[in-house]
């Protein structure tokens, strides 16, 4: 009895190690393939996170990270009691909401519209034209906008005046800032963003459409009842990912559009961090602001993901 037990135990052991060996043999190449990505994340994503602790110090480059004194949460207290904190938060949220809800829907609309275009060449050229702006940097986009809309010698304004209208202060009037920003965002990103939706539309079973046609469904009906439901998962995943960078607006774009006259609507956390960190050299405080932003982003993603799962969808993880 005892012997038999021993035997089986041994067998199992052998089996186990053989299995594991085999498994490793099979899987090793895959692990090796993961390795570069893993190293990348460790070195460039996780490594720098240790630098975050200067948010709790009074960092001086000349004393170094270790010798700078600890100040606890002083920087966070300062941030939340800052006179401009509410303004920054308001501006950031306002722009984020605009981009998340209005900006986000454009790629989907474009993808659906493009999908309905029957002429292949027309479709391809339109698609190229729409995603080309993705490759332009903000400096160029803002520069071009300036050329058109500058009040003194911008093309549009010169034309308006020649036609007897009055000039419009698109670049300096704070009322226009958000729309200019959103419009440029859409112009630059929507065509590119549509690619992923186009790909998933292409994978929808054509039989569904045929069946719908037989049942007499109109084009709109087909879009509403077939295309959109099929896109639901992708849209949701994209949306959750988008929420991760909810509070990240992209420094460059806003900074380029910013000027003293629209500061009250254009000053956001990014530009604030820039001013404090680089212009004034207050690295610790800037880090604290950055950390705050990241925490907000993390909370957004985790909660959006949880909600998605509760609704029975897949989520990102």
């Amino acid at each position, binding site marked *: 009895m005892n012997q038999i037990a021993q035997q089986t135990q041994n067998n199992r052991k052998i089996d186990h190690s053989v299995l594991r060996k085999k498994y490793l043999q099979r899987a090793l190449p895959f692990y090796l393939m993961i390795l570069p990505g893993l190293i990348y994340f460790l070195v460039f994503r996780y490594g720098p996170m240790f630098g975050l602790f200067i948010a709790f110090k009074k960092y*001086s*480059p*000349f*004393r*170094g990270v270790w010798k700078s004194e600890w100040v606890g949460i002083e920087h966070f207290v300062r941030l939340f009691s800052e*006179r*401009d904190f509410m303004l920054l938060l308001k501006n950031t949220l306002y722009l984020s909401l605009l981009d998340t809800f209005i900006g986000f829907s454009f790629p989907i609309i474009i993808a659906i519209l493009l999908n309905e275009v029957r002429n292949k060449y027309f479709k391809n050229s339109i698609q190229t034209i729409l995603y080309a702006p993705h490759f332009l*940097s*903000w*400096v160029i986009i803002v520069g071009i906008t*300036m050329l058109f809309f*500058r*009040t*003194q*010698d*911008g093309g549009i304004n010169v034309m308006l005046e020649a036609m007897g209208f009055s*000039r419009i*202060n698109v*670049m*300096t*009037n704070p009322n226009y800032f958000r729309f200019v920003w959103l419009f440029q965002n859409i112009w630059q990103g929507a065509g590119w963003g549509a690619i992923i939706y186009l790909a998933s539309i292409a994978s929808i079973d054509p039989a569904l459409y045929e069946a719908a046609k037989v049942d007499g469904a109109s084009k709109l009906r087909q879009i509403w009842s077939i295309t959109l439901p099929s896109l639901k998962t992708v849209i949701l995943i994209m949306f959750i990912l988008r929420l991760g960078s909810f509070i990240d607006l992209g*420094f*460059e774009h806003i*900074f*380029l559009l*910013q*000027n*003293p*006259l629209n*500061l*009250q609507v254009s000053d956001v956390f990014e530009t604030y961090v*820039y*001013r404090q960190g*680089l*212009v*004034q*050299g207050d*690295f610790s405080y800037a880090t604290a602001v950055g950390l705050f932003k990241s925490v907000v982003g993390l909370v957004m993603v985790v909660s959006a993901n949880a909600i998605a799962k509760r609704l029975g969808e897949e989520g990102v993880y």
Partner: protein
Amino acid sequence: LKQFMKTAVIGLLAFSFVTGCSSRGDGNSNPPDASASPATTNPSSAVAKNEKKIQIRIAAKFWGGPKWADDHPTIKFLNEKFNVDIKLDLINGPEYDEKLKVMAASGSLPDFYPVDTSTYLAWQSEGAFLELTDWLPKYPNLIAAYPLEHEAMKVLNPKGKVYGIPEVSWIVRDTVQIRKDWLDKLGMKVPTAEEFTVDKFYEIAKAFAKQDPDGNGLNDTIGFAGGYAIENLALRNAFGIANEWMKKDGKLIPHQTQVEEYTAFLTFMKKAYDEGVLDRDFVLRKSTELNEMKYSNKLGIFSYHNNYKLDIEDAVKKTFPNTNPKIVVMAPPIGPNGNRGNNNSSFGTPNRVINAKADKEKIDRILQILNWWVTDEGSQIMKNGIEGIHYKKGTDGKWQITDRWEPEVPRFLNSNLFKRPGTDFNLYLWTDEAELNRHKEYTAIAEKYPWPNAAMGLENYSKTAIAKSASLNAKFQEAVFKIIVGDQPIDSIKQASSAWLANGGDQIIKEINEAVKNK
């Protein structure tokens, strides 16, 4: 980050012009031959053996144009003369300050580099710079050029310490300049200094904006322009607005408190904006764009340094062969209360500092170079370049430049890193008499109406100013701009002023006035 810095730069330009060029008193005389200055040259070559080759990293601001390479003839010359290996780090001017901070954070600051006031003061106490009081006296020419008791050596330093070598140059750099050919074309006369009131200024600018002075049939010229604040400074001064701080009733007050003066100034500016005399995009213009407007025949009245007169005239002539551009120098305009002035250059800045981490030998080598640089011989080479390469003696016995002068800008380091006190740094061996005189006349006009900042250098002793002035001033400026473009009534300057005071300005005023007493 790099990308981000690059773009950041584009935004920042506004201020920066910096340090041009020129000088005071004695410096004007023609630089003597390289060989002929034994009295002033120091024994640097004789004294030290400099046996070990030492690498020296030097940073300087770069403002465009051809860039020095590490094998530039002048660098080669210095390398050989002092047995060093100079590595130049040329950083775009507008992003220089930020780049320095990044370098500091990554522990890679150069050995010798210029810093602006705020960085200079902030980093002194951190021990970033070498303290020089014990070092300087060992270098006879250097200490003669920068005596420890010189005011510029004291202004930004704590008592008894010297952390950098200040620039001692212009008193006033810019004044108003007008395109005389435009005036002629419109049948207007160049006003005399007495006639040149703000109303006259306005009249001229308006004519320039509306009457097609360039004669191309298009309404594309600009009356007067200005980026954030630079270009219309002379106008602000005419209305009596302080260059940051002024003395009133024995107390220092900042310009933000001058509601009355601002009201008059803003009334003027608003009218100019409404009538299309002031550039409608003044808020957006970067300094580079302002320059472009001058060079492209769009702007005929501006505040600038006369050094660029010939450049501008040439450039305009080249692009528009039918024009005959001629720029004349004007005194600053007179305001309603008789005020007039050109802003004084900031005093004792930038400072050139030596990294505290440099070892003794390296420090000595850097100071040897500077000790030589301030001599006639050194200055001569650092601004004219190397004889036979950048300039040579012509057949007529006169100095003339060679083809390599333009592309190799031998004056670069002398203009942008270090120069001896004085304003003769843009006068060369081949500069002729007429040019010398023009230079003198210009300096005389510009400096006749100084408009100094009464608290120069003191702002940095106010803790509140360091912490809050940037955002406070931005708010105030926003209010000023809003009034000019008509978003807010002129009255609202009162609120802006009291907001400035209430949110920290009162404290700043208190601290600055205390700092004066302690100085």
